[in-house]
Structures are given as structure tokens and as C-alpha cells.
């Protein structure tokens, strides 16, 4: 278990203020926060790059606050890979093992295993600058995991990759974590990574950790306005997804939501933009796949638009123009139908 106790560090541009956090063995913790929130400085302090101004870091019961990085068994993967350009991929992956004076044949075996696991075993003799971004990041991850670290730190590991590669590598990270039971702290500003990877999520702002909890807890019940605005995602549903022909059905707390964009079965998170939902007094006989009956539980007039919350088993937020509300003549506690297209449901 990793315990971060009241750690502070002032680096001028970036700061860490009295940060406390516990990470359990085998846990996948994702830290989110805006740019400059102190995400990288937190990871680098954990890795021992610089000593904190105050506070303690305890790993598995041992106070490592003043232990140099090389004796911590904590590995780090950066957004821009940081592969050593003068070494081959194999030499990069084996770099740490060589420092540990592991036998050459043993190094080769471990390097090959890790490379095979990450599907880069055909690239072992190449130099990093000849690899694609995704391949380089796989090599950087391999370089970390061959060390069998007590803690793996990932600093926006997917941010520099294009959409498809990012998706793939995200799944690899999940698989890696499940298989090796490795403890991971993963920093990002991408919410999709939170829902697809995190056991728990921590929100950091201006060097302070403002909320920690399970993803749905944090996203549903933000404990302050900053978190609420920062995670500001409305109509967020969690449920089991089952593929049916071209479409998918998500069972979100008993409510069936049809989506056109999901792929494969399993637990998913889905969102619908409030602007994409129609309200009507009777069910609409339209092309839209999702039609739900619910009760208006809240109407908030925001000037330009009106925000209506409809409880249809789970709450949906709908945005209408003021004219739309007047024309429909709808009021609090009335029953209405909400309709949205399968293609409006975003799944991740």
C-alpha cells in the first residue's frame, strides 16, 4: 500500500499543497485535473525525483521519503515516451534489469516476454526514432513492467497518441493491470480513461487533492463546485451493454438505452447530450430508438435556454428553448415522453 501523507512541494510554476492519498495494492488509481494542477509534480515526487518540502511517502510500510529513486522500485512512463534514443528497443527495455546486474540470458527472456505481451517483439532490434508513437509508448511501458515495480506511474501515457492507437493501448493497460495485479497511478485529463480504467479516481487542483472516490461517486456526487464544473458531464449512465444486431442495449439501472456506437458486451458508461433529447406529451412514432416516459422533477430557466430534469427511472437533463417550454406548456411534476436517437448515445 502507498500512503502519501501531507506532501507539499513548491517548484515555482507548479506546486503540491498538503496532498494526502492512499493507494491500495493492485489498485488502478486515475488522477484527473486541469493543466498545471500539479499532476506531474505529484508523480515525480512519488518517484523520488525531488524531495518534498514537507510530508511523508510510505510504501508498503517503509518510509521512502528520502530514499533515492533507484531504491524505490517505482517506475514511471511519460506522455512523450522518453525512450533512450541511442539504445535499441531491446536495450531500452532491459536497461533497468542491467542496472540490477541480472544475468544476460535472464534479461533477454524477460525483455522478450514483455515485448511479446505488448506486441512489439518484432521491433526489438530497432531504434526508438523509427517507431510509431504507439509502438514507442508500448516500449516505454515494457521498460517499466520488466522491473516488476511495486508502483507504476503513468503520466498522461495516451495523450500523445491518435484516437485509434489510444483506444487500443487503453485496453492493453487494463489487460496489463488485470493480469499482473500491478498497482498503478495514472494521470490524465481524459474522462474516458477514468471510466474505462480507474478503480478509484482522484481530482487534483492547484496542487491540492480535492476529491477521491469511485468514478461514479465522483462524477455523480462532486463534493465542491470545482469538481462539479470540471467533471461537468450530464446524462451520464452506467450499465451492462449487450450487442443486438447493429445496435447495443444498455441496461442502466433498469432503464433500457439503445446505442448505435458501442462495440462489444460488458460494463460501459454512456452519455447523451441534453440538446439531443426531445420532450413530448405523447410517445413519438419516430425513427428515434429511445423513447422513455418520465416525470419532470425540475425546471431551471437559464436565460437563453431552459434546463428540464426528467426522472424516467434514472434522471435525464434536457435543454429546451424558452419558446419550446411555452409551446409545449409543460410544468413541474407532469408526465412527459423523452426521445433521443441511438446515434446520440455516446458510449465509452
Amino acid at each position: 500500500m502507498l500512503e502519501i501523507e501531507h506532501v507539499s512541494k513548491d517548484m515555482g510554476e507548479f506546486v503540491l499543497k498538503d496532498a494526502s492519498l492512499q493507494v491500495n495494492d493492485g489498485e488502478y488509481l486515475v488522477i484527473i485535473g486541469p493543466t498545471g494542477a500539479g499532476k506531474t509534480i505529484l508523480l515525480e515526487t512519488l518517484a523520488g525525483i525531488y524531495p518534498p518540502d514537507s510530508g511523508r511517502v510510505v510504501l508498503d510500510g517503509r518510509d521512502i521519503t528520502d530514499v533515492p529513486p533507484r531504491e524505490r522500485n517505482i517506475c514511471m512512463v511519460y506522455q512523450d515516451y522518453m525512450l533512450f534514443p541511442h539504445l535499441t528497443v531491446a536495450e531500452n527495455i532491459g536497461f533497468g534489469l542491467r542496472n540490477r546486474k541480472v544475468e544476460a540470458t535472464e534479461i533477454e527472456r524477460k525483455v522478450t516476454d514483455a515485448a511479446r505481451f505488448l506486441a512489439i517483439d518484432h521491433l526489438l532490434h530497432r531504434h526508438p526514432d523509427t517507431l510509431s508513437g504507439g509502438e514507442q509508448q508500448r516500449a516505454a511501458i515494457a521498460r517499466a513492467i520488466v522491473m516488476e515495480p511495486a508502483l507504476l506511474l503513468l503520466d498522461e501515457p495516451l495523450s500523445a497518441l491518435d484516437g485509434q492507437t489510444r483506444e487500443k493501448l487503453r485496453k492493453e493497460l487494463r489487460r496489463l493491470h488485470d493480469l499482473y495485479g500491478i498497482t498503478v497511478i495514472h494521470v490524465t485529463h481524459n474522462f474516458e480513461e477514468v471510466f474505462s480504467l480507474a478503480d478509484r479516481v482522484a481530482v487534483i487542483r492547484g496542487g491540492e487533492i480535492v476529491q477521491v472516490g469511485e468514478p461514479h461517486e465522483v462524477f455523480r456526487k462532486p463534493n465542491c463546485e470545482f469538481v462539479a464544473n470540471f467533471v461537468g458531464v450530464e446524462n451520464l449512465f452506467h450499465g451492462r451493454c449487450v450487442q443486438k444486431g447493429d445496435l447495443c442495449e444498455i441496461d442502466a439501472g433498469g432503464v433500457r438505452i439503445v446505442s448505435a456506437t458501442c462495440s462489444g458486451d460488458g460494463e460501459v458508461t454512456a452519455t447523451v447530450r441534453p440538446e439531443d433529447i426531445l420532450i413530448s406529451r405523447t410517445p413519438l412514432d419516430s425513427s428515434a430508438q429511445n423513447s422513455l416516459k418520465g416525470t419532470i422533477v425540475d425546471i431551471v430557466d437559464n436565460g437563453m435556454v431552459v434546463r428540464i430534469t426528467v426522472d424516467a427511472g434514472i434522471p435525464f437533463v434536457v435543454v429546451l428553448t424558452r419558446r419550446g417550454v411555452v409551446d409545449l406548456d409543460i410544468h413541474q411534476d407532469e408526465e412527459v415522453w423523452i426521445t433521443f436517437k441511438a446515434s446520440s448515445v455516446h458510449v465509452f
Partner: protein
Amino acid sequence: APNSLKAATVGVAALITAFIVILLLLVVTHPSPAALVASIASREIQFAIYLSIVTSIASTAISILIAVPSAYALARYDFLGKHAVNTIVDMPLALPPLVAGVGLLLFFGTTPIGKALAEAGLVFIFTPLGIIVAQVFVNFPFMLRIMRSTFEGISPRYEYVAKTLGCTDLQALWRVTLPMATSGLIAGGVITWAKGIGEFGAALMIAGATRMKTETLPISLFLNMSCGELEMAISAATILIVISVVSL
């Protein structure tokens, strides 16, 4: 004419280029090939070549030993007085070499440290050792400047990663940053070496111009010019031109 400004400015550039080329050709073609070969084969020029090569290689090596750690400190760390250090280490580039030579002469000739070194057998005044120290003092800033910007161009995160993978600070520098800085090291080494070969003013002050003792190629050029041995002088100049052109 729409291109008169182009014609005029390119003309100036071409003229000055031509002037430089003519000057170099004048020197190189002045001695007859036979005289050039005879001069180069002479014991004196042979000695000057030998002494120039030995002193310049030694001074380049010492410059690397001084400049690489200093450049690393200036690129990676914050410390008290960093700004002053940054300015002062460039100082020898702004100083006339003669003045640097006088400073070295005073340091090794008049201070307790200099006298202690002399008693320990390390005599710098009027010896080849003085030539080396003069070359180092005047030229190490070239090495330092290039290495400083080379180190600044390498993200410290490479070292961070190396350290999490089991390296000490020194190992991270040695196994990761220095190999990544090779091209800067080579560029800096070549410039420092070429400048060392050509060094005259500072060496003249501390090591003097003694035939067959402190006679590097520039000193040889000076000595032979002084006593009218034009063939010998220009042979030395020719060799120096060849070195400059090759190292460019």
C-alpha cells in the same frame, strides 16, 4: 531596375567572399610546392607541428573535463550566483588573448599557488605546459557554450526515467545524457581543438616564443616572420589554413 537592391547587396557579399578566398589562395600559393615540402620536412616545422598537435589535444581534453561538468551544472541546477557564473565563464571570449596571457603569467609567476606548483615540478612559464594552460583558458568557453545548449536541449526526464530504473545521478548522466550529447561533444571538441591550434597571443605571453622549445605553428609563423624567413613562415600559415578549412 526592380533587382538593383539585390544586385548591390549580393555584390557586396560576393566581393567580400572573393577577397577572403584570394587572401587564402595568396598564402597557400606563395611558396613553390618544392619550397613548401622542404619547409614542412624541416626539423623546425616538424617540431612545431608536433608541439601544436600535442598541446592542442591536451588542451581540448582538459577543456572537456572542465567544460562538461560546468555546462551540466549550468543547464540542470539552480544555485546561488548562477547568473554571475554564466556571465563570467564566457568572459575569456571577450578578453583579448594577450591580456589573458598576462593574467596567467601573473598567476603562475607571482602567486603562492603558482610558486607551489613550480616547486612541485609543474613549471608553466616559458614551457609547453604554459601553452596548454593558455589554450585551455582562452578556448574552453567554446566547449562550455556548446555543451550548455546541448544539455539544455535534452529533457531531464530521460535522467528521471534512468534513475527510477536503478541509476545513480552520475550513472544517469554517463549512460543516458552524455551518449545523447555526443554530437555536441564532437562539435565542441573540433572547435576547441582548431582554436587551440591557432592560439597565439595568450601562449606568447606565458610561454614566450622560444625556437624549438615553445614553438607551435603560430609561434613559428611569428618567429620566422620576425627574422624574414618568409618560406618557413608561410609554410606554417599554410598548414594552419588547411586545419581551419578542414575543421569548419
